[in-house]
């Protein structure tokens, strides 16, 4: 195993303390932070135990999720020996961050009260609501970052961010990446999990025989990952290696796990295989272990499938009995704890009185045991899972080969057309694309009944966004997509918000009819990851699945995420998609406060990217703050996907062509549609090259598509 990615810093804010070190010590000591709290706005929910953080000093003016995140990131950077606001330009640093609720906590009180007459000024609390708001602020405080992206894959979001950051290091698009996730406790998740019957009023007790559900928590976890080369060159203290990882989807059910844990076991196998490790080497598993009847049973089944007769040996524990289920933070906070476990050979307990009969499960006392290899599991609603594999730093095999040969840094092609990391010696092709728009004569402001777009009986409970995304995904897959490779197909949904209008409705109902009357089936669709989860279940997609967010450029960031996955060899093909369901609240808040366009028509778009050759390929892609690299000669046009109108569009300043082929606005507000329009013109041979551009918060996301015969 040649470790290539070093973890040089960790940071955490949890209910057990505001530093990773303190929280880990209290975790090892068996302290339980789950308890009853006062909830002035929702006294009916006060009996439900949660784990709440004490907000770190100096962040009181920020939305809570941002405060937790900034504190954790600052901690992790300092821990890695990097001054938070001063990384040298020579070290390209990126940020990948996970969350499920974003700034929902601050928006909640407002959401339950919004009416037709609510003025834009009154919608101000929604400012913290876009999923990418935290990453944006982190960029301002700790940047500049060469890449920034927000991921949502429900309860595994924090771990998926680690996976994405790691793949950026492998692709050579950055040298260092800050990864992690955060979520703040909020009424919506408390109401929703309660309505689903998934909360245990006695407190979540993972793997306990008498367990009855989970307890919610909050927090933030951050890790600094670096290439081995960089870490060793600068003499950084390495806490552990990130030896492997895997992300995928069960495509089974939106809230229930696969009972036999087949996909979960497969993810663990793949994470180990990537690090050239075998199950026999695993000394510890930091389980997802929520404490629900179903998850813990499924996870134990997965562990049995993975370890076979060796099942009793590896030690297993879940932190959720002590810090609660931190949703988007969970995967990252628990990764931090797993790293510390490996570093110190101290394995946290299961803080539960009566464990399932399974010898590997650690009891209420922490265990001292050196660990060479450990796994950290995270599984989310919709069956979206990520598994991380960590290995001990002092394992005696820590010396990588000298220079770049030790990891998969791609050599730039001779034509230096791309910006950092966009050089693509292995090509990614645009195999198929689909743009769904209202039929002429129909009402463009009304998403049609789902039976007109997809199979009605397989899409009950789908909200409008899920319907649109499933429809677009089904079409690109059926047009061409290799349906025999669905286990190696990814699905990335670019979206800026969760379902804002639905969340408002959910909260209004809780207010008027009481917490016990909220429709349970409505809750899963409030998560930003809902549409991708639903579409994956609908189409049977089982590779990495999730929502990708980058504010006004969200759809384009999904394109980049898809292309990166194919480029990295993670998947055979990847689908990027986006939809415009005309969520009234999102549009009003978006137009009033975020400078987003105000679309007048529903639409959906999807693209299928593959390593199988076809007529159009990705000549370059990337992000930048300044002028783009010179465009190729020939018939070129630029396509503007969407732009953040709060920033004046300096077309010339970005070096975009102003002659023949001037920018054409795509379907209003639907960033991903520009790729489809560009592809259509390329296919009709009206163009040789098409540059698709999306602008958000002063950053330009760009992708250059070219006809294959014009390849350099």
């Amino acid at each position, binding site marked *: 195993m040649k470790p290539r990615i070093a973890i040089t810093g960790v940071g955490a804010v949890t209910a057990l303390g505001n530093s990773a070190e303190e929280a880990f010590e209290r975790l090892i000591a068996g302290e339980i932070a789950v308890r009853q709290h006062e909830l002035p706005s929702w006294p009916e929910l006060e009996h439900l135990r949660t784990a709440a953080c004490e907000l770190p000093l100096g962040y009181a003016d920020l939305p809570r999720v941002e405060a937790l995140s900034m504190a954790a990131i600052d901690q992790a950077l300092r821990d890695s020996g990097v001054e938070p606001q001063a990384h040298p330009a020579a070290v390209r640093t990126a940020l990948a961050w996970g969350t499920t609720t974003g700034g929902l906590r601050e928006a909640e009180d407002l959401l339950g009260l919004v009416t037709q007459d609510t003025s834009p000024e009154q919608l101000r609390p929604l400012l913290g609501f876009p999923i990418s708001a935290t990453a944006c602020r982190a960029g301002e405080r700790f940047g500049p970052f060469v890449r920034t992206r927000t991921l949502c894959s429900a309860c595994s979001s924090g771990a998926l961010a680690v996976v994405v950051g790691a793949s950026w290091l492998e692709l050579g698009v950055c040298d260092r990446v800050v990864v992690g996730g955060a979520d703040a406790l909020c009424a919506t998740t408390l109401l929703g999990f309660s*309505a*689903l*019957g998934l909360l245990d009023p006695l407190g979540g007790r993972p793997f306990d025989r008498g367990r009855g559900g989970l307890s919610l928590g909050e927090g933030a976890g951050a890790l600094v990952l670096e290439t081995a080369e960089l870490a060793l060159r600068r003499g950084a203290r390495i806490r552990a290696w990130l030896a492997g990882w895997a992300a995928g989807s069960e495509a089974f*059910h*939106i*809230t*229930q796990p696969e009972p036999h844990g087949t996909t979960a076991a497969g993810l663990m196998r793949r994470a180990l295989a990537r690090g050239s490790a075998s199950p026999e080497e695993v000394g510890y598993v930091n389980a997802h272990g929520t404490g629900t009847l179903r998850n813990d049973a499924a996870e134990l089944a997965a562990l049995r499938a993975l370890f076979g007769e060796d099942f009793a040996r590896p030690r297993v524990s879940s932190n959720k009995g002590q810090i609660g289920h931190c949703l988007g933070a969970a995967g990252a906070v628990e990764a931090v704890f797993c790293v510390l476990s490996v570093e110190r050979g101290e394995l946290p307990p299961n803080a539960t009185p009566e464990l399932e009969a399974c010898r590997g499960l650690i009891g209420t006392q922490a265990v001292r045991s050196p660990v060479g290899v450990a796994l950290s599991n995270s599984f989310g609603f919709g069956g979206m899972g990520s598994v991380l594999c960590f290995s001990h730093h002092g394992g005696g095999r820590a010396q990588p080969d000298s220079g770049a040969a030790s990891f998969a840094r791609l050599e730039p092609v001779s034509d230096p057309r791309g910006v950092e990391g966009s050089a693509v010696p292995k090509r990614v092709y645009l195999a198929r694309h689909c743009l769904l728009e209202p039929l002429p004569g129909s009402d463009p402001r009304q998403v049609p*009944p*789902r*039976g007109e777009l997809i199979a*009605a*009986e397989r899409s*009950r*409970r789908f909200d409008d966004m899920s319907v649109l995304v499933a429809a677009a995904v089904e079409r690109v897959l059926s047009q061409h997509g290799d349906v025999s490779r669905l286990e190696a197909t990814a699905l990335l949904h670019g979206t800026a918000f969760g379902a804002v209008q639905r969340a408002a409705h959910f909260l209004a109902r809780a207010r008027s*009819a009481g917490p*016990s*009357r909220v*429709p*349970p*089936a409505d809750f*899963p669709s409030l998560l930003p990851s809902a549409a991708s989860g639903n579409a994956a279940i609908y189409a049977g997609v089982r590779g990495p699945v999730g929502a990708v967010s980058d504010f006004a450029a969200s759809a384009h960031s999904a394109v980049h995420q898809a292309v990166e996955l194919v480029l990295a060899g993670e998947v055979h093909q990847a689908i990027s998609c986006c939809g415009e369901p005309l969520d009234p609240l999102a549009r009003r808040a978006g137009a009033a406060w975020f400078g987003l366009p105000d679309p007048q028509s529903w639409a959906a778009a999807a693209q299928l990217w593959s390593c199988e050759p076809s007529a159009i390929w990705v000549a370059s892609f990337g992000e930048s703050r300044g002028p783009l690299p010179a465009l190729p000669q020939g018939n070129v046009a630029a396509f503007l996907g969407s732009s953040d109108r709060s920033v004046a569009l300096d077309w010339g300043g970005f070096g975009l062509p102003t002659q023949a082929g001037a920018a054409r606005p795509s379907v209003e507000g639907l960033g991903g549609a520009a790729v489809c329009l560009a592809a259509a013109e390329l296919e009709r041979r009206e163009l040789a090259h098409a540059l698709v551009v999306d602008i958000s918060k002063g950053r330009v996301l760009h992708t250059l598509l070219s006809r294959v015969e014009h390849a350099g």
Partner: protein
Amino acid sequence: MADELRLEIKRLMIRELDLAGLEPAGIDDDAPLFVDGLGLDSLDALQLAMAVEEAFGVVVPEGEEAKPIFSSVAALAEYVAQHRQ
């Protein structure tokens, strides 16, 4: 009376569980609701329990105890008829 209640329950199901395209006539009184028959799942069970509670003022137990009650429209109608105030 029993027929009316069964019809009401079927309409409730179609509405609450988003069974688009189904008419009450298309739902068999005695067919299984879960797994086989209509193929509803546990999330539907939660949704239906809440809707029944709200519509008829009847409390439906959770978990295993609910299974016989939800075994068919007829069984559900009988439970509601027995327990409604």
